[in-house]
């Protein structure tokens, strides 16, 4: 869970990490300046308003005259209107800056992710990355807009009030000022505890949410296993722990507010006592005393606010650090400068310079280990795959069958040696060039929310409806689409969840065919389709792979017997290779044992 990782990741960044964010603030610097200026002005006006009271009491009430009161009222009203305008502008601007920075950061993070290599995605789970894009950015936007504004408003308010108080009566002001350090210590003490407690509560809360998630998505499993009681007990234990911690945290925050308001009352009492005395002595006017009282009462709140804000800033550092770390992560698989110059980058391809891909693939003395491991899964591996060759990769679940495919697709690059595409190192041309020529059907089919048409056109935006129907026919998926109420315009739901796994697989197959790729990659594509459909697909496959270079990861051996080359993988390494008939000759071989087990008994039965 992203939340629990927070603890380990608390870092201290210079200046709250703001310098790292500066490039993203630059476009808004003028607006920010206006915002800061207006914020200061608003707080100036806020701190001045009580002076109107003093003026009114001293000049009208005490002197017993109403002369000029209409002018006074007018001026007061004017100040209010000016304040309204400034208030509105600064708040609106603040919101605008927040959202704009948010948006820019989200775009930057999202776009950066499009170029990161697969090792990043293997090392970080989707939930974690998703939180970087969606929630860290939001917190940072909040920081540069509202938190900034809070600090400016409260800071200048304190400053102005201090100035006014000092100008009214220095000694009295110093009495009040003496309370400020106490307030600061108090706030810091409590805040420190509260940050920790609240983080813990948030963690517990997300645990409870995932418990709900588990209880609901796992309803079928819970019912069939009859473990309702156990799951409920665990749930109750979590909610109880949440309750205890929440009450504990409230105990602190209640002590906190109670002591801060008590301190304000002390300030009030102090001002009343000392101020009353000098007023009686005739040093100060009554109106001035009342103003002073309201300042004394009002100064502690902004102090509290400012400290709470600062502690928020410290908490946001984690988010800043995590986001900048993402933005600073460099892709393991990156195109070189020269390549980008000639072929363009991911977002600005120079398609005019792209060569036609013919389809020869060659592994030349390739050694490879995954970036997060040290054990070599390929060592000095050579394999020529001429255009049109059909390569099948077989082996047990988890044996490492995807490795070759990852290398062909350049999702990873060889640690040593070369992968040649049409005789040239894959690194000599851009990733996008290669990917634009590859069709891919995944083990777990992935569709995007949107219509069937949008999904099918994913690899070929220019495909016509006719071409789409043809592709669907090829994989016998016509019926699926026809059965849906809006045909090609039907919504597939989030992640395609309106369709069954088998249906998703068929559609993702049609999608790959539509892209008309030179190289086709099939990753256990036929594992959850019933036999009749599977047969239809296999027929389609043999049509589709004709003339194309293809790599097929297959569980079912019947899929692979036609392959030109079969690679047999065990424990991450290729232990046998050859055509089906050649491999079958070695009766002690691994392939032989894999294959015969499936068919032996059956053929005996069929004969006998």
């Amino acid at each position: 869970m992203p939340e629990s990782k927070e603890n380990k990741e608390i870092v201290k960044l210079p200046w709250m990490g703001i310098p790292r964010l500066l490039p993203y603030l630059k476009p808004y610097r003028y607006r920010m300046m206006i915002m800061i200026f207006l914020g200061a002005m608003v707080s100036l006006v806020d701190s001045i308003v009580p002076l109107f009271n003093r003026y009114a009491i001293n000049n009208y009430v005490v002197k017993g005259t109403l002369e000029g009161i209409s002018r006074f009222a007018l001026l007061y009203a004017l100040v209010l209107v000016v304040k309204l305008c400034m208030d509105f502008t600064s708040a609106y601007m603040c919101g605008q800056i927040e959202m704009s920075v948010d948006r820019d950061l989200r775009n930057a993070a999202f776009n950066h992710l499009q170029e990161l290599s697969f090792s990043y995605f293997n090392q970080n789970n989707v939930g974690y990355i998703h939180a970087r894009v969606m929630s860290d950015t939001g917190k940072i936007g909040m920081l540069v807009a509202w938190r900034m504004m809070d600090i400016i408003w409260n800071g200048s308010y304190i400053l102005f009030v201090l100035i006014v108080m000092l100008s009214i009566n220095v000694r009295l002001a110093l009495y009040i000022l003496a309370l400020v350090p106490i307030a600061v210590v108090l706030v810091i003490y409590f805040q420190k505890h509260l940050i920790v407690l609240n983080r813990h509560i948030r963690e517990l809360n997300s645990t409870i949410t995932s418990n709900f998630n588990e209880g609901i998505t796992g309803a079928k499993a819970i019912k069939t296993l009859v473990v309702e009681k156990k799951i409920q007990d665990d749930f109750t234990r979590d909610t109880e722990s949440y309750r205890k911690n929440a009450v504990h945290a409230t105990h602190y925050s209640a002590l906190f507010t109670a002591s801060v308001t008590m301190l304000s009352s002390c300030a009030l009492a102090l001002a009343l006592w000392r101020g009353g005395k000098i007023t009686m002595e005739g040093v100060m006017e009554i109106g001035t005393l009342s103003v002073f009282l309201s300042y004394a009462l009002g100064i502690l709140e902004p102090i509290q606010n400012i400290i709470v804000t600062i502690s928020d800033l410290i908490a946001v550092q984690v988010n800043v650090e995590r986001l900048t770390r993402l933005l600073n992560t460099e892709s393991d698989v990156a195109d070189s400068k020269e390549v980008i110059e000639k072929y363009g980058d991911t977002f600005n391809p120079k398609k005019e310079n792209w060569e036609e891909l013919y389809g020869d693939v060659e592994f030349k003395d390739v050694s490879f280990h995954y970036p997060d491991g040290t054990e070599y899964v390929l060592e000095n591996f050579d394999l020529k795959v001429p255009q049109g060759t059909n390569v099948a990769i077989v082996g047990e679940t988890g044996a490492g069958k995807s490795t070759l495919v990852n290398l062909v697709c350049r999702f990873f690059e060889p640690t040593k040696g070369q992968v040649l595409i049409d005789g040239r190192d894959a690194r000599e041309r851009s990733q996008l060039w290669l990917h634009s020529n590859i069709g891919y059907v995944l083990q777990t089919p992935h569709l995007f929310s949107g219509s069937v048409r949008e999904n099918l056109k994913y690899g070929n935006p220019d495909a016509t409806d006719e071409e789409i129907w043809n592709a669907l026919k090829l994989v016998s998926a016509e019926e699926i689409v026809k059965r849906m109420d809006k045909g090609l315009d039907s919504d597939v739901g989030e992640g395609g969840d309106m369709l069954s796994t088998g249906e998703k697989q068929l559609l993702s197959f049609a999608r790959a065919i539509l892209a008309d790729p030179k190289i086709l990659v099939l990753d256990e594509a036929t594992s959850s389709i019933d036999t009749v459909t599977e047969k239809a697909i296999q027929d389609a496959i043999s049509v589709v792979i004709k003339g194309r270079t293809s790599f097929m990861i297959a569980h079912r051996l019947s899929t692979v017997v036609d392959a030109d080359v079969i690679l047999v993988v065990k424990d991450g390494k290729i232990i046998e290779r050859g055509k089906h008939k050649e491999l079958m000759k070695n009766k002690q071989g691994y392939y032989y044992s894999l294959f015969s087990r499936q068919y032996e008994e059956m053929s005996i039965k069929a004969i006998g």
Partner: protein
Amino acid sequence: MNNKNKFPTRSGLVFFFLKGSIGLFASGIVFSMLVAFLDMVNPKIIQYTVDYLIGDSESTMPFYMQLLIGISGGKAYLKTHLFVIACIVITIAIVCGICRYLNKVLNSMAAEKLIKRMRDILFDHISHLPFAWHGENHTGDIIQRCTSDVETIKVFLSEQLTSLFRIVIMITFGLIFMFQIHVKLALISLAFIPVLVLYSLFFHNRIGNAFREADEEEGRLSAIAQENLTGVRVVRAFGRETYERHRFEKKNDAYTKLWIKLMMLLSAFWTSNDLIAGVQCMVVLVMGCVFAVRGEITVGEMIAFYSYNAMVSWPVRMLGRVISEMSKAGVSVDRLREIMNAEIETDREGATEPSLDKDIEFNNVSFSYDNGSSEILKNVSFKVKAGETIGVLGGTGSGKSTLMYLLDRLYELPEDQGTISIGGVDIRNIKMHYLRRNIGLVLQEPFLFSRTLKENIAITRKTPELKDVTRAAKLASLDETIRNFDAGYDTFVGERGVTLSGGQKQRTAIAQMLITEPPIMIFDDSLSAVDTETDAKIRAALDKHASGATTILISHRITTLMHADHIIVLSHGELIEEGTHDELVEKGGLYRKIYDIQMQGGEERA
């Protein structure tokens, strides 16, 4: 049991949830009212100090103030010993602080008790709802109800509703004091209250709507990011980064625009609200001056009036909020009521616990998921002898999983749609939990809990015994795989741990079932993601160690089914063929056709 109308009203459910916390809430409210009252007293003291002691005015004062002054040593003494007043102020502050603390803590104890009770009850209720209910409702929607609606209700009850008492107290006392000081001035100040309340109400609804819109848009944006990340392979393999970027940026823009619009609305609300409050203060000040100059009120009275006025304006604004939140909370209560009013699974009266190592009989079973729509099963009848292994072959949508769900009573077979019996007892007359405990059903799409592998396999046990766990894991060909993990059986699975492959998950689910040693075992296509070699290994292990159990194997892999004692073939909800493997091959029907397809490679080349 008829609990359709268990909670016919909103308040019925709210009071049900409030059981156990209502007393705490009440005592919290008592302290909050004390706080409100004490907050009102301080300005009074200041008024009299300024007026009577410092300002020498001869205004009449209520007897309790006279009493207070009497106790503290009389006017003359106080005039020279102002610190006594300061001490009184501080004493009141201390008492007030204690009350404030108690109020907050009691309120939080109540609120947390409430939310715990709500969560526990909901969770328990949901886990006892029939599986059909789960199918009809979206997971995301239910979770949202259990989290954010619960939160909304808690916040409303513990913050808004309890503050209502304080608000009323503050407004009442404030107004009483204000009216005591000067009726006309109080009326002037009062005139602003309806304006503020109406105004807040007006804005609150619009802001609420804008928030909802922005929330929905955020959901869409978030979904795009999510899909892009989970589908990163597809995006890359098709070279569609630019498309993804445009898609995201477009939604991101739309979302940002909505928020900026919302910000505009919020800014307008905040600032104009402040303006109204500011104008009210100004009018009170100016009119106060007029009355003071006319000699109708004293300086001290005016200062006190001013502070009461400021004090009343906050609760008034809150009042508008409470009213508008009330409708929001009401909606949340209704959404929870829908869950709580759904009927839970119950056993029939006189349900028994017969021994289940008997023959299973499906007799004329027909079924459709939602009444009247296309039938998933049509008059299916067959028999499974005790201890036998039966194979079920059928295409996607042939109804083979549904058959098993009916046997496990995940879905209840309607009265007139045939019968399913075990040892002659209609399963509807068998205690549900007893039945399920004795049927080990391994699901097609296995579900693992976010716990360790050990705990997952032994999920049905109170305490996981490693010995039993490894035994089950060995049978499921999983032991070796697990031992290869760094943490072995303590490896954490699920969203916070390692991701298992489809085949590993299926094997874990099988181990999970095997540990319970049930008399009836069902494998609902549970070996589809396991390669054929492991598949064979597992079946061999089962034959050896669990041969006494009645076994139902569902698969589209002939090699998995061919050794079964009896095989039935389902197509579009109908039983079209049955017999042993040899009989079916002989017969030349659908089974033969599928067999030929799967055989093809083997026969020709092996």
